């Protein structure tokens, strides 16, 4: 579970510190930093797990506009498998050439260094913290993404595995495709690869498919199941098709032909079954877009049920229906006084006014002042 995040000189974050709880509901005005927070978590996953170029995930345009410093700093602390991990990343920017390099990067576990990169030199440590190999690399990528699975790197890979389980999702139905060229183990932030992720689930979590279909039968009238069919003469290419019924007749319809709301519901309910809360974190940015108002709370109830015992959730939304339900979790208010640096603090609601949480938020009363 993520216990602390510190962000400096990234977008609207200057010396920003956030100590999240387990089920976090993020509220705040437009431009208050909620989506930038999600961008940062996704950037870390791409850097540390997928080996993306640091200039790509921390572009120079991500430097705080009113700050003249050229370095960005991110600190992430988490309890993973009963141990306190700490990750510190410092990115150096060359504004003129719009390039970034990693100045330093460190992972510690219970205070002992597992990995350190500083000014071009990687120092590997074994699980107990004693120094191992030392060598030079360029700082354009995180070497953590390249660490091989060996007994001496076990604890470091636990950390990388944790970052891999941090999923950031902001669905964009227009970008979703019902065509899958291969299996993909992770749902893309926009949901664009849903067909490929679903294809992965059919192989890895086939036992959950019936649960997904049963839930969808209730929320999508006429829905029966999903299937992947050959696209015909194109090798491994498959098309995602929904089996539906109407007027006592069964018919198939391409995933792409379903409405925005139907596709969103299919992805959201699949997400409930396809994600194991475990020790990762799910970050959802306005998941309810396109979902009919009567279907929002039932899905949120299922989401809460999924995370009832374990896992960590961050959900951001301005939708009154979502606010009213999720404000009973741990609500946090993002704000940028006078348009300056983003801040976050627990939202406080009045219980005696008779106003709903959304009404209090709309009136600017959820600040406890």
């Amino acid at each position: 579970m993520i216990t602390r995040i510190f962000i400096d000189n990234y977008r609207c974050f200057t010396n920003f510190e956030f100590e999240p709880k387990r089920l976090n509901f993020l509220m705040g005005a437009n431009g208050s930093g909620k989506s930038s927070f999600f961008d940062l978590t996704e950037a870390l996953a791409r850097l540390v797990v997928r080996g993306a170029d640091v200039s790509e995930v921390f572009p120079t345009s991500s430097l705080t506009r009113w700050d003249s410093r050229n370095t960005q700093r991110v600190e992430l602390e988490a309890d993973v498998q009963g141990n306190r991990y700490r990750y510190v990343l410092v990115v150096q920017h060359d504004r003129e050439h719009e390039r970034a390099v990693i100045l330093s990067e460190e992972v510690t576990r219970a205070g002992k260094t597992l990995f350190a990169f500083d000014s071009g030199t990687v120092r590997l440590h074994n699980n107990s913290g004693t120094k191992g190999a030392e060598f030079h690399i360029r700082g354009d990528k995180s070497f953590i993404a390249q660490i091989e699975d060996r007994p001496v790197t076990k604890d470091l890979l636990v950390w990388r595995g944790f970052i891999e389980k941090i999923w950031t999702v902001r669905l964009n139905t227009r970008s979703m495709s019902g065509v899958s060229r291969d299996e993909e183990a992770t749902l893309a932030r926009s949901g664009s690869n849903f067909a490929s992720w679903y294809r992965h689930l059919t192989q890895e979590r086939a036992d959950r498919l019936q649960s997904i279909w049963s839930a969808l039968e209730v929320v999508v009238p006429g829905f029966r199941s999903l299937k992947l069919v050959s696209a015909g003469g194109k090798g491994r290419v498959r098309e995602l098709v929904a089996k539906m019924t109407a007027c006592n007749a069964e018919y198939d319809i391409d995933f792409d032909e379903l409405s925005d709301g139907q596709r969103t519901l299919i992805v959201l309910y699949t997400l409930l079954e396809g994600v194991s809360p475990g020790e990762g974190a799910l970050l959802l940015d306005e998941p309810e877009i396109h979902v009919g108002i009567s279907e929002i709370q039932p899905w949120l109830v299922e989401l809460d049920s999924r995370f009832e015992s374990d896992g960590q959730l961050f959900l951001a939304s301005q939708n009154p229906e979502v606010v009213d339900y999720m404000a009973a979790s741990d609500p946090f208010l993002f704000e940028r006084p006078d348009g300056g640096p983003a801040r976050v603090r627990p939202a406080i609601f009045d219980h005696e006014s008779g106003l709903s949480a959304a009404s209090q938020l709309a009136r600017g009363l959820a600040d406890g002042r």
Partner: protein
Amino acid sequence: MGADRRQLRGIVLAEDRRTERFIRHLLDVCGFDKRKFRFHTAPGQGSGEAWVRVQYPGEVKLLRAKVHQRLCLVAICDGDALGVEARKAQLDEALRQADLQTRAATERIATPVPTWAIENWLLDLLGEPNINEAKKPSTEAGPTWKQLFERAYGADEKGALTEAANRWDTANPRLPSLENGRVEFERIDQ
């Protein structure tokens, strides 16, 4: 009975998320369709009891306006230091203040009052010994019931709530508020 329960629609006013979750498990166990219930739980931290009390008259009024529909209301809030009867009297008073009649025995309105809090009910249902309705388990300096519950069941709270709901009808409650809560819960199904 089972089919009827699946058709019942309702509102649940709860003072915190744990209480809401327990009611959700209870609805499942008792054969109600959870999707036909809407959950209005006190936002943020602080006294959720006030939230339930303030929301209660509006929901009662709505329920009475839709008398031809099969609707029910569960308003559940902790007894804290007041206890069951005094808390129920507060809810009655909230209705009077809103120019509404207090609830009739025939209305599908349940007002269970876990005392001291929902954790006392959960611990009792789960068979923990020495549970009572006092504020602290033993001495004044001891842990709260909430802390006691979280220490014992925090690692698998969902499992604990499910098990407690499963024992709703079978466990032999030692807490007067729990015994009263069972009677209250039956009101939504009449």
